[in-house]
């Protein structure tokens, strides 16, 4: 277990390096630079600006620059999106919002998905089961850019229950309700289906039959005995799901105008803001690696057979 953990932790920086290098090259290959605008720039001014950000040097030199700065945990200054602000300050400012939204979305997905799946597995083929699976399938199939505006329309513009967009800090949680629901919907749907399938699989096994023979109630069997094993597919899904929720709030952040890191990533890529793109890519890479690692560890704890 310890060796496994160590190996995974040692792999992480390598994966990040590959990710950063690929992103670096792709960004430099994209046409247009951070200062291109509708107003032409005097070549002299363009030269000065490029020199200021080392953009006039050969790409290999720029890459080495980037690596050595990275080794000192220096991500540089935002070139064009936020002139005069450091990339680290932008990330520190926006990451918590994305994480909070992601955590809320994940919590909702679990709170809705797991009970729905358990109930379905207890009465398979019943009307309630069919209904919950249809709802789950709908939630999985509908893109978030459809669910989001629909929620805003119904609960914001028609019913006036919740604000339709914007963010006022975590002291005003009402602003996060609709985004969190929209974000959680497809994940809740998948978790419900996985929970149901996992439980049904386990419920037909011998130890469950023994428990049933001893007179335990269906609910007790499902929650106390079967869920632990039946939950494994959900847990292995949670790793990528957490990463997807945290990084996938990009569309939701756009629809609900939430000032998170997902929007910075999109905007900085369009702006060719090289430093800010690299910063957000690295953060997302790190989140992805950590989530997958945690999911693997959790899986090992739940099911001893996977411990190797």
């Amino acid at each position, binding site marked *: 277990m310890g060796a496994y953990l160590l190996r995974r932790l040692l792999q992480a920086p390598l994966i990040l390096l590959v990710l950063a290098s690929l992103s670096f090259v792709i960004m430099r290959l994209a*046409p247009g630079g951070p200062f291109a605008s509708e107003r*032409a720039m005097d070549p002299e001014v363009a030269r000065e600006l490029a020199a200021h950000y080392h953009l006039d040097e050969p790409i290999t030199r720029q890459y080495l620059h980037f690596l050595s700065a990275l080794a000192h945990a220096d991500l540089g200054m935002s070139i064009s999106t*936020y002139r*005069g602000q450091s990339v680290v300050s932008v990330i520190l400012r926006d990451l918590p919002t994305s994480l909070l939204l992601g955590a809320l979305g994940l919590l909702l997905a679990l709170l809705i998905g797991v009970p729905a799946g358990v109930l379905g597995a207890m009465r398979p083929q019943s009307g309630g089961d069919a209904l919950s699976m249809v709802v789950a399938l709908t939630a999985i199939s509908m893109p978030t850019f459809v669910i989001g505006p629909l929620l805003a329309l119904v609960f914001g513009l028609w019913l006036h229950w919740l604000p339709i967009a914007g963010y006022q*800090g975590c002291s005003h949680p009402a602003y996060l309700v609709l985004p969190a629901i929209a974000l959680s919907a497809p994940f809740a749907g998948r978790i419900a289906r996985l929970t149901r399938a996992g439980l049904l699989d386990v419920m037909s096994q011998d130890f469950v039959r023994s428990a049933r023979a001893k007179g335990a109630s269906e609910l007790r069997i499902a929650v106390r005995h079967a869920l632990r094993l039946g939950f494994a597919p959900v847990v292995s899904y949670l790793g990528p799901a957490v990463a997807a929720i945290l990084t996938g709030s990009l569309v939701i952040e756009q629809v609900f*105008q939430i000032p998170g890191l997902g929007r910075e990533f999109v905007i900085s890529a369009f702006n060719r803001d090289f430093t800010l793109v690299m910063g957000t890519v690295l953060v997302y890479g790190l989140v992805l690696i950590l989530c997958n690692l945690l999911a693997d560890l959790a899986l090992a704890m739940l099911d001893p057979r996977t411990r190797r």
Partner: protein
Amino acid sequence: MQPSAAAIAFWLCLLGCRAASQDAAAPADAALPAWRVALMPSDARWRGVAQDFIFNNDTEPQTLDPALMTGTPEGRLALGLCEGLVGYDPQTLQARPGVAQRWEVSPDGLDYTFHLRPDACWSDGTPLTAADFLASWQRVLTPATGALYAYQLYPVQNAEDIHLHHHAMADLGVRIPDAQTLLVHLAYPCPYFLDLCAFQTLMPVPMARVARYGEGWAQEGRFLGNGPFRLQEWKPRERLVMVANEHYWDHAHVLLHSVTALPYDNVETAYEKYQDGSLDWMPSVPPGKINDLLRNPDYYSMPYLGTYFYRFNCAKPPLDDVRVRKALALAVDRAVITDHVLRAGQIPATWFCPDVAGYHHVDGLAYDPVAARQLLHAAGYGPGGKPFPALSLISNSSNAHKQVAESVVQQWQANLGITVGLEFCEWKVYLNRVDTHDYQIARASWIGDYTDPNTFFDMWVTDGGNNMTGWSSPAYDRLLDASQREADPQKRMALFHQQEQILIGQDMPIMPLYIYVNQGLLRESVHGWYENIRDIHPYQYLWMQ
């Protein structure tokens, strides 16, 4: 071509609606000049109403450093947080006293003497002097500052050489005989120089803070301005709040208590916010909602100092032949685009420069499909001639650009029998292709930098950075040069007329399509807000009632 009857009716209707909601005249104040009195409320109905104005600023500002600003959203913030030597009149845009309480111009138009207010100060109460302006302008002209709009200072003697060719900063044509006097010597008579003095690039910045914090001086907690409002709170991507600045020289007449700028870049979201009552003004509207908007009493649409046009790449066949360029321009009925595609009051235009500062445009080639076919035939294409080569039109992707392009291409097909392909690319890719002349026909637009025709004509000089068509005309260059030296307004306008005649009557490196409008939604409770050609609305003249 004249504006269509529909467009005229549209304007009259809108002007009528707006005029009714604007009452003027003010509380008695003997020292107040008449123009300012006319911009004050006529009665006390505004009292007791919360004087808080909230608008959508379309996006998060790139910077609050006025010297580095390039975009309209940043400009809207500078208008509240900073002030130049002069400010804009909210109705006419003419120069009104700012940090300078008065100024004189020499008869040859080359020397400006600005007399600064003795009580001028920053929003923390520290004095602001002529030296602050000089240092701020020198900073703009320092290449390392990276001020993309530094060219706004080029009319000042030697400014261009200092910025581009490392001339000594001491050569700048600015002198400060005392703390309250700024003498500016221009390289050429520049009738719009006062207008530039109101623009953000020429606004003062607190050099002590710049020295202390470097690039990061304009962050929350460090920023310092001298405008009618001061920065109270800036939560990036959430909101920016400014409140009335007690140290502002005209604080007594600033009625708004606070101005809040929201950064929603999704115009659909902003529209929903406006509908639920959380915005007082949104300066851009969802194009797809035009039917709803036209029924909304809060909707306005006003002519803007901007032109939508297509560039022709004059260096590549078949567009190197002026007959082909003219044929393409003759074959498009602009009214189809403005009345049926855009429908927001845009003015169909065969000319390039909007009517501004006493300039009246020259009419270009009106819609004439027969003449268009004849020209194309004369160029050797069509029946009995060679087949017309494949052409393509590039644009950045956006629904509105697509609809316009499809209409134009369809008209070319119908009137000339030629097929023009459409290519839509991401913004930076599109910019790169136009800049490197990697196109045949390219969508384009130009928004005036200042309220003068020169901003529309100087870009077409041979090899000018914004020309990008490969077109060059020595006659045009001579006329442009003459207009920039001419101090007499009438002769100057005549020279601009001749330039426009070459541009859109004779050589056609571009094909104008329409004059922009500014559309938005403004609550009836907002007063002191006027339509003007540059969409500039200084907050110190607004009140809620």
